[in-house]
Protein backbone atom coordinates (compact mmCIF):
# COMPACT_ATOMS: atom_id res chain seq x y z
CA UNK A 1 0.00 0.00 0.00
CA UNK A 2 1.37 3.37 -1.01
CA UNK A 3 2.25 5.72 1.79
CA UNK A 4 3.15 9.35 2.26
CA UNK A 5 3.80 10.42 5.83
CA UNK A 6 4.22 13.85 7.33
CA UNK A 7 6.14 14.45 10.54
CA UNK A 8 3.40 16.23 12.47
CA UNK A 9 -0.39 16.41 12.26
CA UNK A 10 -0.59 19.59 14.31
CA UNK A 11 2.09 22.20 14.97
CA UNK A 12 2.01 25.49 16.87
CA UNK A 13 4.87 27.93 16.42
CA UNK A 14 5.59 31.55 17.26
CA UNK A 15 6.19 34.39 14.84
CA UNK A 16 9.82 34.49 13.72
CA UNK A 17 10.58 30.86 14.48
CA UNK A 18 12.19 28.61 11.88
CA UNK A 19 9.85 25.76 11.06
CA UNK A 20 10.62 22.42 9.41
CA UNK A 21 7.90 20.24 7.89
CA UNK A 22 9.03 16.79 6.86
CA UNK A 23 7.52 14.47 4.28
CA UNK A 24 8.54 10.89 3.51
CA UNK A 25 7.23 8.59 0.77
CA UNK A 26 7.90 4.90 0.38
CA UNK A 27 6.90 4.52 -3.28
CA UNK A 28 10.27 5.43 -4.87
CA UNK A 29 8.57 8.36 -6.61
CA UNK A 30 10.72 10.90 -8.40
CA UNK A 31 8.34 13.82 -7.94
CA UNK A 32 7.39 15.39 -4.64
CA UNK A 33 5.24 18.43 -3.94
CA UNK A 34 4.32 20.83 -1.15
CA UNK A 35 0.93 22.53 -1.17
CA UNK A 36 -0.90 24.73 1.25
CA UNK A 37 -4.66 24.44 1.59
CA UNK A 38 -6.80 27.37 2.65
CA UNK A 39 -10.61 27.58 2.72
CA UNK A 40 -12.01 28.87 -0.56
CA UNK A 41 -8.60 28.82 -2.23
CA UNK A 42 -8.17 25.10 -2.75
CA UNK A 43 -4.62 23.79 -2.99
CA UNK A 44 -1.81 26.09 -4.01
CA UNK A 45 1.57 24.73 -5.02
CA UNK A 46 4.49 26.07 -2.99
CA UNK A 47 7.45 24.05 -4.37
CA UNK A 48 8.02 20.80 -6.15
CA UNK A 49 11.00 18.57 -6.79
CA UNK A 50 11.49 16.18 -9.69
CA UNK A 51 14.70 14.60 -8.46
CA UNK A 52 17.13 14.59 -5.57
CA UNK A 53 18.59 18.06 -5.02
CA UNK A 54 16.34 19.49 -7.74
CA UNK A 55 13.55 21.93 -6.95
CA UNK A 56 11.27 24.35 -8.72
CA UNK A 57 9.12 27.16 -7.43
CA UNK A 58 5.40 26.74 -7.51
CA UNK A 59 2.79 29.47 -7.43
CA UNK A 60 3.44 30.82 -3.92
CA UNK A 61 7.09 30.20 -2.94
CA UNK A 62 7.64 33.45 -1.04
CA UNK A 63 8.60 32.85 2.58
CA UNK A 64 9.36 29.17 1.99
CA UNK A 65 12.32 27.04 0.98
CA UNK A 66 12.70 23.30 0.44
CA UNK A 67 15.32 20.60 0.69
CA UNK A 68 15.55 17.22 -0.98
CA UNK A 69 18.73 15.38 -0.02
CA UNK A 70 17.26 11.90 -0.41
CA UNK A 71 14.72 10.60 -2.89
CA UNK A 72 12.18 9.63 -0.25
CA UNK A 73 12.28 12.83 1.81
CA UNK A 74 11.15 16.36 0.96
CA UNK A 75 11.31 19.09 3.57
CA UNK A 76 9.51 22.42 3.64
CA UNK A 77 11.19 25.19 5.59
CA UNK A 78 9.65 28.40 6.85
CA UNK A 79 12.71 30.57 7.50
CA UNK A 80 10.85 33.02 9.74
CA UNK A 81 7.28 32.00 10.38
CA UNK A 82 4.57 34.62 10.09
CA UNK A 83 0.89 34.54 11.06
CA UNK A 84 -0.19 34.52 7.40
CA UNK A 85 1.52 31.14 7.06
CA UNK A 86 -1.05 29.58 9.36
CA UNK A 87 -2.53 26.90 7.12
CA UNK A 88 -2.87 23.21 6.29
CA UNK A 89 0.23 21.93 4.52
CA UNK A 90 -0.03 18.90 2.27
CA UNK A 91 2.78 16.87 0.80
CA UNK A 92 2.33 14.67 -2.27
CA UNK A 93 4.40 12.44 -4.50
CA UNK A 94 4.06 11.02 -8.00
CA UNK A 95 5.87 9.21 -10.77
CA UNK A 96 7.69 11.25 -13.46
CA UNK A 97 4.56 11.47 -15.63
CA UNK A 98 3.14 13.59 -12.82
CA UNK A 99 -0.14 11.86 -13.33
CA UNK A 100 -1.79 10.68 -10.15
CA UNK A 101 -0.48 12.29 -6.97
CA UNK A 102 -0.51 10.57 -3.58
CA UNK A 103 -1.02 12.78 -0.58
CA UNK A 104 0.05 12.68 3.03
CA UNK A 105 -2.41 13.36 5.87
CA UNK A 106 -1.41 17.01 6.17
CA UNK A 107 0.12 19.21 8.86
CA UNK A 108 -2.05 21.91 10.35
CA UNK A 109 0.35 24.72 11.28
CA UNK A 110 -0.67 27.57 13.53
CA UNK A 111 1.67 30.55 13.85
CA UNK A 112 0.95 32.75 16.85
Amino acid sequence: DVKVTQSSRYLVKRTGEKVFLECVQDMDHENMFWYRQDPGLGLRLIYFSYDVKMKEKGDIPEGYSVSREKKERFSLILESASTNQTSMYLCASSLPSRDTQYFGPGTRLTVL
Partner: protein
Amino acid sequence: AQSVAQPEDQVNVAEGNPLTVKCTYSVSGNPYLFWYVQYPNRGLQFLLKYITGDNLVKGSYGFEAEFNKSQTSFHLKKPSALVSDSALYFCAVRAPVYSSASKIIFGSGTRLSIRP
Protein backbone atom coordinates in the same frame (compact mmCIF):
# COMPACT_ATOMS: atom_id res chain seq x y z
CA ALA B 1 -2.75 29.30 -18.88
CA GLN B 2 -4.65 26.41 -17.42
CA SER B 3 -7.37 26.83 -14.84
CA VAL B 4 -10.16 24.90 -13.19
CA ALA B 5 -13.40 26.13 -11.64
CA GLN B 6 -15.76 24.51 -9.17
CA PRO B 7 -18.75 26.85 -9.21
CA GLU B 8 -20.44 25.49 -6.08
CA ASP B 9 -18.88 25.87 -2.64
CA GLN B 10 -21.40 23.43 -1.19
CA VAL B 11 -23.77 20.78 -2.52
CA ASN B 12 -26.49 19.28 -0.33
CA VAL B 13 -28.18 16.01 -1.30
CA ALA B 14 -30.49 13.58 0.45
CA GLU B 15 -29.21 10.05 0.95
CA GLY B 16 -30.25 7.78 -1.90
CA ASN B 17 -30.59 10.62 -4.40
CA PRO B 18 -28.21 11.13 -7.32
CA LEU B 19 -25.45 13.67 -6.84
CA THR B 20 -23.45 15.89 -9.18
CA VAL B 21 -20.42 18.01 -8.34
CA LYS B 22 -19.55 20.41 -11.13
CA CYS B 23 -16.17 21.21 -12.63
CA THR B 24 -15.14 23.23 -15.67
CA TYR B 25 -11.64 23.73 -16.98
CA SER B 26 -9.52 25.74 -19.35
CA VAL B 27 -6.37 24.27 -20.87
CA SER B 28 -4.54 24.19 -24.19
CA GLY B 29 -4.87 20.88 -25.93
CA ASN B 30 -6.47 17.76 -24.56
CA PRO B 31 -6.59 17.89 -20.77
CA TYR B 32 -5.70 15.42 -18.08
CA LEU B 33 -8.54 15.66 -15.53
CA PHE B 34 -8.74 14.35 -11.98
CA TRP B 35 -11.07 14.17 -9.02
CA TYR B 36 -9.82 13.88 -5.45
CA VAL B 37 -11.74 13.56 -2.18
CA GLN B 38 -10.74 14.78 1.25
CA TYR B 39 -12.40 13.33 4.33
CA PRO B 40 -12.20 15.31 7.61
CA ASN B 41 -8.66 15.62 8.98
CA ARG B 42 -7.24 13.54 6.15
CA GLY B 43 -5.11 14.14 3.07
CA LEU B 44 -6.53 14.00 -0.43
CA GLN B 45 -7.39 10.64 -1.92
CA PHE B 46 -7.44 9.97 -5.66
CA LEU B 47 -10.92 9.11 -7.00
CA LEU B 48 -10.61 8.94 -10.78
CA LYS B 49 -8.95 10.44 -13.82
CA TYR B 50 -9.52 11.06 -17.50
CA ILE B 51 -6.64 11.07 -19.94
CA THR B 52 -8.06 9.66 -23.14
CA GLY B 53 -10.68 7.21 -24.38
CA ASP B 54 -14.23 6.77 -23.13
CA ASN B 55 -15.77 10.03 -21.95
CA LEU B 56 -17.38 8.31 -18.96
CA VAL B 57 -14.79 7.40 -16.36
CA LYS B 58 -15.52 5.13 -13.42
CA GLY B 59 -13.67 5.50 -10.15
CA SER B 60 -13.59 4.51 -6.52
CA TYR B 61 -16.60 4.28 -4.16
CA GLY B 62 -19.13 4.15 -7.04
CA PHE B 63 -18.25 7.58 -8.40
CA GLU B 64 -18.01 8.39 -12.10
CA ALA B 65 -17.26 11.49 -14.12
CA GLU B 66 -18.16 12.56 -17.62
CA PHE B 67 -15.71 14.42 -19.82
CA ASN B 68 -17.48 16.88 -22.12
CA LYS B 69 -15.05 18.55 -24.48
CA SER B 70 -17.52 20.99 -26.04
CA GLN B 71 -18.59 22.28 -22.64
CA THR B 72 -15.08 21.93 -21.14
CA SER B 73 -16.58 20.16 -18.15
CA PHE B 74 -15.76 17.14 -16.03
CA HIS B 75 -18.65 16.73 -13.59
CA LEU B 76 -18.48 14.14 -10.83
CA LYS B 77 -21.56 11.96 -10.40
CA LYS B 78 -22.96 9.15 -8.32
CA PRO B 79 -26.37 7.50 -8.87
CA SER B 80 -27.22 7.07 -5.19
CA ALA B 81 -25.57 9.15 -2.48
CA LEU B 82 -24.45 7.78 0.89
CA VAL B 83 -23.99 9.72 4.12
CA SER B 84 -20.38 8.52 4.07
CA ASP B 85 -19.84 10.43 0.80
CA SER B 86 -19.91 13.68 2.78
CA ALA B 87 -16.49 15.23 2.21
CA LEU B 88 -14.59 17.92 0.33
CA TYR B 89 -14.13 17.22 -3.37
CA PHE B 90 -11.44 18.72 -5.58
CA CYS B 91 -11.28 18.78 -9.35
CA ALA B 92 -7.84 19.15 -10.96
CA VAL B 93 -6.46 19.64 -14.48
CA ARG B 94 -3.11 19.31 -16.17
CA ALA B 95 -2.09 20.22 -19.69
CA PRO B 96 -0.94 17.16 -21.68
CA VAL B 97 2.57 18.41 -22.40
CA TYR B 98 5.08 17.04 -19.92
CA SER B 99 7.35 19.85 -18.80
CA SER B 100 8.32 21.54 -15.63
CA ALA B 101 5.67 24.14 -16.42
CA SER B 102 2.94 21.55 -16.72
CA LYS B 103 1.61 21.50 -13.19
CA ILE B 104 -1.61 20.05 -11.86
CA ILE B 105 -3.98 22.88 -10.97
CA PHE B 106 -6.59 22.22 -8.30
CA GLY B 107 -10.01 23.80 -8.01
CA SER B 108 -11.18 25.55 -4.85
CA GLY B 109 -13.14 22.53 -3.68
CA THR B 110 -16.82 21.67 -3.21
CA ARG B 111 -18.14 20.50 0.12
CA LEU B 112 -20.63 17.68 -0.37
CA SER B 113 -23.12 17.13 2.44
CA ILE B 114 -25.41 14.10 2.36
CA ARG B 115 -28.32 14.22 4.79
CA PRO B 116 -29.87 10.99 6.08
